[in-house]
């Protein structure tokens, strides 16, 4: 791209010809986190502790100390997160190629199905039907699963039963297929986790994590505002914090969408 094209892009963003859609939830202590059996190590919840707020602790300034796990809020999964990706080169958030942080997205709208069935699963035939309408998923694209799950209240969002979470996601076959047959750069979900709530019972367990990270691809979860994206053509900017050997991080995910 010539530099004048980039300046055109900047102008289009400024004029509104290119919309910037924020796909990120506010990072806050009350946002649900992944639930694991209590005997496992737990993600530290988001904590915000005031250092000073124009007071005796610092008269002219306001700032906080923050703590959180790498997988809290709207967050990014790097390949090193899963055992399948542990030996890949450049598999952590600090070593992954910066160019992977910007890529186009295909958005598959399954909000109608997810409204009917919290355990709704994306399958290969459903993606093929989407391709029949919108064209083949190009290489190195994000596939984002729109379920409108992000519009729910927190309890319905986490949707925990005594047999685990019930939230939509991909099945095992479609994850393998998207990675191997479509070369996706990553998969994004509105729920807590790229995988479905019941994915621990799939074969293999947690197939999105298994296949994506095993092939050096990425995950995005707890996304919102996917309903504001077109089926194709949006550009996703997802640059995680550069945490040393980090397995992921909360981040600001934005999408560039042409208004025309």
């Amino acid at each position, binding site marked *: 791209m010539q530099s004048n094209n980039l300046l055109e892009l900047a102008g289009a963003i400024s004029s509104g010809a290119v919309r910037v859609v924020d796909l990120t939830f506010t990072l806050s202590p009350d946002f649900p986190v992944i639930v694991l059996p209590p005997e496992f190590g737990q993600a530290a919840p988001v904590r915000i*502790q*005031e250092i000073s707020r124009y007071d005796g602790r610092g008269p002219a300034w306001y700032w906080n100390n923050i703590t959180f796990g790498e997988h809290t809020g709207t967050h990014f999964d790097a390949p090193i997160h899963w055992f399948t990706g542990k030996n890949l080169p450049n598999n952590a958030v600090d070593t992954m190629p910066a160019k992977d942080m910007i890529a186009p997205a295909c958005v598959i709208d399954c909000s109608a199905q997810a409204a009917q069935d919290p355990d709704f699963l994306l399958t290969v035939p459903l993606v093929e039907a989407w391709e029949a309408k919108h064209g083949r998923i190009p290489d190195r694209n994000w596939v984002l699963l729109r379920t409108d799950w992000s519009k729910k209240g927190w*309890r319905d969002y986490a949707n925990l039963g005594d047999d685990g979470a019930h939230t939509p996601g991909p099945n095992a076959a479609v994850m393998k297929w998207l990675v191997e047959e479509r070369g996706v750069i990553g998969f994004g979900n509105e729920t807590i986790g790229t995988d479905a709530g019941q994915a621990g019972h799939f074969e293999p367990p947690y197939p999105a994590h298994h296949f994506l990270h095993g092939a050096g691809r990425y995950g995005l979860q707890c996304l919102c505002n996917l309903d504001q994206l077109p089926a194709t053509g949006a550009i996703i900017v997802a640059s995680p914090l550069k945490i040393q050997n980090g397995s992921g991080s909360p981040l600001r995910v934005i999408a560039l969408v042409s208004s025309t």
Partner: protein
Amino acid sequence: MVEPIKPPRRKNPLLRTRLPASPPRARSRTSHGYTRGAAEGRFLLQRCEACGAFAYPAREACPSCLSFGLSFVDAPRRGTLLCETTARVPSDVYFRERTPWRIGLVKMDCGPTIVTHLHADCVEGAPIRMSFQLDKSGQAVAFAHPEGETPNMADDKQWREMTADPKFRRVLVTNGRSVIGQEAVAALKGAGAKTVFVGIAEPWRPFAGEKLLRGQDGIEIVTLDAADEKSTADLAADIGGKVDILINTTEYVRPGGLLDRRGTSIARDEIDQAYLGFINLAQAFGPAVRMRGADGVNNSVAWVNILSVYALANWPAFGAYSASQAACLSLSHCLRAELRPGGVRVLNLFTGPVDTEWFQTVPPPKVAPRAIAQAIVSGLRGGLEEMYVGDVAEEIRQRLAANPKALERELDR
């Protein structure tokens, strides 16, 4: 005959909230023998090891035989009220605000004569039962009760100064997810609390017993994650001025000590939940609780901590947990001092292993959560500061007093 107290009306917003005053604090070091007993509801008097005579007030030598061997022992509580008088215009601010105030002279069956505060139903010449109570300055004072039960006896004005009865008061139970928390809610409602606020962290997580809590009058579920500064401050902004009794039911038990755990994330959670949670609660609720110590019938009166007895002596099987409890015990003493100007008591309940999930593999005896809840109520009603709930807690305490080094070796198994 005591008139039953009435449910307090809503406050008149045109009137200033009265600030708490304290009765006189000065005591000799020896006199704190009474404080030690009063904190636990024991009636301790000095007794001469040489001649066996009981003495009062606290002395350095036996008034009968001049022996120096005076030690505090549990003493018989019975006596007779010799005479009484009513103070109408005392110079002390605390008593001046509470007149008329009755005091009397009691001849103990075991010998000494004691100047004492009087329950309204104590009659001259009649037998009475004595106790030492912690007054609003946290010091032990003698209190005479009628020998038997009398109608509405807990509602006596002078007695209520010595206690933290939940009746008509508003209580915050900080963690309603736990069995202990839910038992505490039930016990406090049963004891006549007007409202029990029940803190629930991360309300998006379902929990056992939720339906029951939601269905009851006088129980309000509130969002509270005590480990989170903002959540605690937000709740205090809403209800901080309506918490008369705070029950800290934070419960975060994990097995393990130092070497067989990897890393610090569990220890961090323990500190977050127990220690920082304590600080968050104290900073958010403490100032209003301290300020409202004289705010009418439903003034703020008490803060309750449920602590592991292994705060006193580390149990290596739950070693890091023990340490987090020791930290909370230390904080509780700081809190007690800081709430003192409000006349608000800090009641610590020490328990052994509780019959809950995280002590599943620990053999009995274990403390039933209901026993803890009942102890909370009886401790509040009795105006206590320290309680040992269950056999294990009591035994650990005795073994610690007898030989701390022996206990250390014995817990190392």
